[in-house]
């Protein structure tokens, strides 16, 4: 079943043009001039029910504009979209009952009240049946381990505790699709990990479609099977996260322990990252050479005691990917 279907979706904003200086400001006041700025330019993709999709792109690429269109807040300039069988912008209130959203930077919990009160409010807002609600609430409390904080005012919770409550609150009405915008922003590594696990669990057990934007590589790697990358309003990559890694993975890291200090190493496509005596960390440009040929070259002249080959962290892949876009733009 299709969860999200987007075709040729386009959004053009009118941006006020202002010249610098006081005269410019005055001119803009009396005779405003507008220029068109395309935030999203004819993107097409579809997401199956139960998929976990990371929606990536540098700042200003059109991510949040797209999310706003998919949740019905923004009306597109052209194109069509369907979320859970509804047109988001004409059937926004109908859709509202079936989707959930978590915005890492915005809180939906009532600041002075314990989370339990917000849960109660959500149950009313989403018009949940009493039994359904208590059952669902209790299972979420158990799963998210919220027991100890239920009666503490939100202002006294730590960010990690609060975030768990935020996600639980947005899951109360059993949304079929969950939109997450930077859900782990500002959290420490352990809490991040826990939140990712919980989201993955929800996805597996309830088949909730996950649509996530994040600048955190870990979110993408641990949470999502598929990545859609946009830049300047257009899709530049759409495929499995694994495949994305391979495509943008042009380097591998090799850690070596040799029997003797190898002295000067000069191999084609190999850069020495660190070295201390016979311990070396190399970066191998796999576009230029292969791991195999580097290894055989090394083995012919040195004795290898220990060796590991690693992919660079996701972080590097994403920054390399964004870097590639910029390089291309510079050429154009």
């Amino acid at each position, binding site marked *: 079943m299709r969860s999200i279907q987007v075709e040729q979706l386009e959004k053009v*904003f*009118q941006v006020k043009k202002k010249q610098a200086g006081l005269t410019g400001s005055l001119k803009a006041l009396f005779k405003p001039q507008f220029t068109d700025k395309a935030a999203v330019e004819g993107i097409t993709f579809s997401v199956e029910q139960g998929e976990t999709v990371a929606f990536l792109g540098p700042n200003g690429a059109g991510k949040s*504009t797209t999310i*706003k269109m998919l*949740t*019905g*807040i*923004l*009306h597109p300039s052209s194109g069509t979209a369907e979320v859970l069988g509804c047109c988001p*912008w004409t059937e*926004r*209130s109908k859709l*509202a*009952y079936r*989707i959930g*959203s978590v*915005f890492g930077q*915005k809180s*939906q919990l*009532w*600041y*002075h*009240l314990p989370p339990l*009160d917000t849960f*109660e*409010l959500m149950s*009313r*807002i*989403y*018009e*949940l*049946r*009493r039994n*359904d609600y208590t059952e669902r609430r209790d299972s979420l409390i158990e799963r998210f381990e919220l027991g100890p904080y239920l009666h503490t*005012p939100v202002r006294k919770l730590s960010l990690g505790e609060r975030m768990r409550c935020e996600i639980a609150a947005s899951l109360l*009405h059993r949304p079929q699709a969950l939109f997450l915008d930077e859900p782990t922003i500002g959290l420490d590594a352990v809490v991040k990990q826990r939140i990712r696990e919980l989201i993955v669990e929800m996805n597996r057990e309830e088949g909730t479609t996950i649509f996530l934007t994040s600048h955190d590589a870990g979110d993408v790697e641990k949470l999502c099977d598929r990545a859609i990358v946009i830049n300047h309003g257009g899709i530049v990559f759409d495929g499995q996260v694994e495949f994305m890694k391979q495509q943008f993975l042009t380097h591998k890291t090799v850690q070596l322990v040799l029997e003797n200090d190898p002295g000067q190493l000069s191999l084609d496509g190999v850069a020495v990252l660190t070295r201390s005596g016979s311990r070396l960390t190399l970066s191998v440009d796999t576009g230029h050479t292969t791991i195999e040929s580097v290894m055989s070259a090394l083995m012919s002249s040195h004795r290898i005691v220990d060796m590991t080959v690693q992919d660079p962290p996701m972080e590097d892949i994403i920054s390399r990917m964004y870097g590639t876009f910029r390089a291309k733009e510079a050429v154009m």
Partner: protein
Amino acid sequence: MISFSKPAKYIFIGKITLRSQLAYVVDFVIRSLFLLLILYIFMQLWQTTFAGEGTTAINGYTFKQMMWYLVFTESMVLATPSLCTRIEEEVKSGDVAFKLIRPVSFLAFHYVEYMSEVAIRFVINLLLGSTIAFLMVGSLPVGAGLAWLPLMAFGGFTVNFMLGMLVALSAFWVEETRGLEFVYNKILFTVGGMLMPLELFPDKLQQIGHWLPFQTIVYFPARTAVGMHHGEIAGMLAVQWLWAALIGLVVWFAYRKGVRKLNVNGG
């Protein structure tokens, strides 16, 4: 899945606001101590005026009534939260968009929130203000007018919400709404009859005031509560709710237009 009716939704929002506002009770009490200052100043002012006039009543109001009138108007005005600050913040930060994702009406949500907040503040102010006034000028002659206060105040706050919302919604088009709110508050102080009953105004200004919605906010409830013009209660209520409905309609249109702008241009 639907079992709760829509009104139940908003009743609960009202209840939760009330609970949340209890966190600020100390803040409200401190704020309403301001009443002490105002009442003291006006007591001096009216005492001198009444002494100067040499009469027991000015335009139908006795000194006691005048002071209690002020207790009611001040209690109401001090009870109203700044809608502008709230809505402007929501529009600017983009929170308004996220409110739209939930199956709840933006205007109804704010109305319920506003009314429950106002209710709790008004009661506190009234308790404190009455105590002060009681100690300063003695008790208000309890009359049938006082019984109408809750209903009148309810209508008054509703009109005030509508007007406040209208000003606040301009945040969709202008950057800064505080200026407008400042002007609005000053209008309420004067032709709205907060500082003194409209009867005391020059004829021309009185006539103008009677054609404007501002009189329905604090002037109507306060003059009824101090026992003036009981025969006009039905008429006043009608005028009050007529304005509430009329401005409510304008608010609704402004909101629709604002949302459309947000839909088109991202706010």
